[in-house]
């Protein structure tokens, strides 16, 4: 039992800055693993699915943990921002309430305090929740190594099951979201068995920007969780809605197209058939919710009525 209980042995490194992380990654290429919150990595190490010789801790690098507004109005989130910090950030809530809500649902409160957005994007599983809403926002990530830095759109970041664009000597430092200059609304809806624990059976995110006519969708982005080997944009469904009013019939059509674009697999959690049906329903619901926000909200797209304060949020008293 000790074998299963204890982690495999490693040398622990605690860098203080991004250049130091890069130096360590270069020095131990292929032998080192980055450790963010560890909520995925520790489990994989315990199961001996990953056995790194060096563990590079990122909790000691303060410059990786921030959420800030850029001068041009864009939003940048540091890789080490925790799910809790994202869900409670006023900036994220005002801008993209659905992203804050996604963060609030990354497992139990115990998991929110430790899990990070960088770890969520880099583990490369199609079942984690941050990629879909971020894909609908056209997010980009910054990858840094001793060779330099590069900006990679999230659409294209996922190369296959558990395969991302991050090279062994690279580190993801931040997630960038450009400003949206039209009225917009977004939603992310996931289906799962047990709120606090369960990995998402299937999820759908939608983000709609309104045309200046105030009537039709200028642009629509839709992305799916656990519906393909990678987090997936469904561009056919998006195209079907652009320039149109997002009516009930339109959402139904988009849901159908999305379910044809998806290629989910059967696992113990659910059959592929059920997941395909879920895609149809969840895409419709996400679009409905996003459209309601875009047509009823002010410019920001945040609809407070859809958004409950987390019970452990100190601001909860202000809402009573």
């Amino acid at each position, binding site marked *: 039992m000790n074998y299963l*209980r*204890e*982690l*495999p*042995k*490693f*040398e*622990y490194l*605690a860098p203080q800055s991004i250049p130091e992380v890069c130096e360590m990654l270069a020095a131990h290429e292929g032998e080192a693993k980055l*450790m963010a919150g*560890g*909520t995925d990595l*520790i*489990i994989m190490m*315990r199961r001996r699915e990953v056995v790194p*010789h060096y*563990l590079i*801790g990122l*909790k000691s690098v303060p410059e990786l943990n921030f959420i800030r507004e850029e001068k041009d109005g864009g939003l940048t989130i540091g890789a080490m921002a925790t799910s*809790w910090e994202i869900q409670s950030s006023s900036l994220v809530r005002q801008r993209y309430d659905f992203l804050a809500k996604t963060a609030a649902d990354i*497992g*139990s*409160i*115990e*998991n929110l*305090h*430790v899990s990070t957005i960088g770890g969520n994007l880099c583990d490369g599983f199609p079942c984690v929740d941050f990629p879909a809403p971020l894909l609908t926002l056209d997010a980009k990530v910054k990858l840094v190594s001793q060779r330099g830095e590069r900006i990679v759109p999230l659409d294209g970041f996922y190369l296959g099951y558990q395969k991302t664009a991050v090279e062994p000597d690279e580190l993801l430092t931040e997630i960038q979201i450009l400003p949206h200059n039209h009225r917009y609304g977004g939603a992310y809806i996931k289906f799962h068995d*047990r*709120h*606090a*624990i369960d990995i998402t059976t299937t999820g759908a995110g939608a983000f709609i920007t309104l045309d200046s006519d105030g009537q039709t969708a200028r642009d629509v982005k839709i992305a799916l969780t656990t519906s393909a080997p990678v987090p997936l944009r469904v561009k056919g469904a998006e195209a079907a809605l652009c320039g149109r009013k997002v009516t009930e019939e339109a959402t139904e059509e988009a849901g159908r197209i999305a379910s044809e674009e998806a290629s989910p697999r059967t696992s113990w959690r659910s059959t592929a058939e059920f997941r395909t049906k879920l895609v149809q329903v969840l895409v419709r619901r996400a679009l409905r919710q996003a459209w309601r926000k875009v047509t009823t909200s002010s410019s920001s797209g945040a609809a407070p009525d859809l958004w409950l304060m*987390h*019970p*452990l*949020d*100190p601001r*909860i*008293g202000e809402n009573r």
Partner: protein
Amino acid sequence: MKQRVPISLTVNGEIHELFIPPWQLLLDTLRDELGLTGAKRCCIEGQCGACTVLIDGKPINSCLYLTIEAQNQEIVTAEGLVEDGKPHPIQKAFVERGAVQCGFCTPGLVVATKALLDQNPNPTEDEIRIALSGHLCRCGAYVQITEAVMAAARETAQKEVGV
């Protein structure tokens, strides 16, 4: 590869200078090095909440946290809620309301409740359920647990206004 490294850990207000393997998890350090067996070793995958402790007031799963990363922070376990040998009002409420059956999930629930009431002294039933949703009770005492948290909240509120 170093088999042990020196670390300094603050648990329940006491500073411990320890010499531990870098791959040791906080749960194992608490139980095996410090003899604090309140935090329970159960699913060891973050699914059940039995190993929950507070780090700087925040509940976390100690089965998924490296001890070496818990330095320079205040760790509180269920043992740490006891004051002058007397159980904390939350602990008392759990006992009095029958929220403790086999007791295995209790220490984790008690510290998670502490974190909840510190932020939200007057939670609704729904808020309690969400805040404690990371905890499994195999005896199924969920109704009593919720009642105990409500009772503890009332008790704490009364203390504060000096009733």
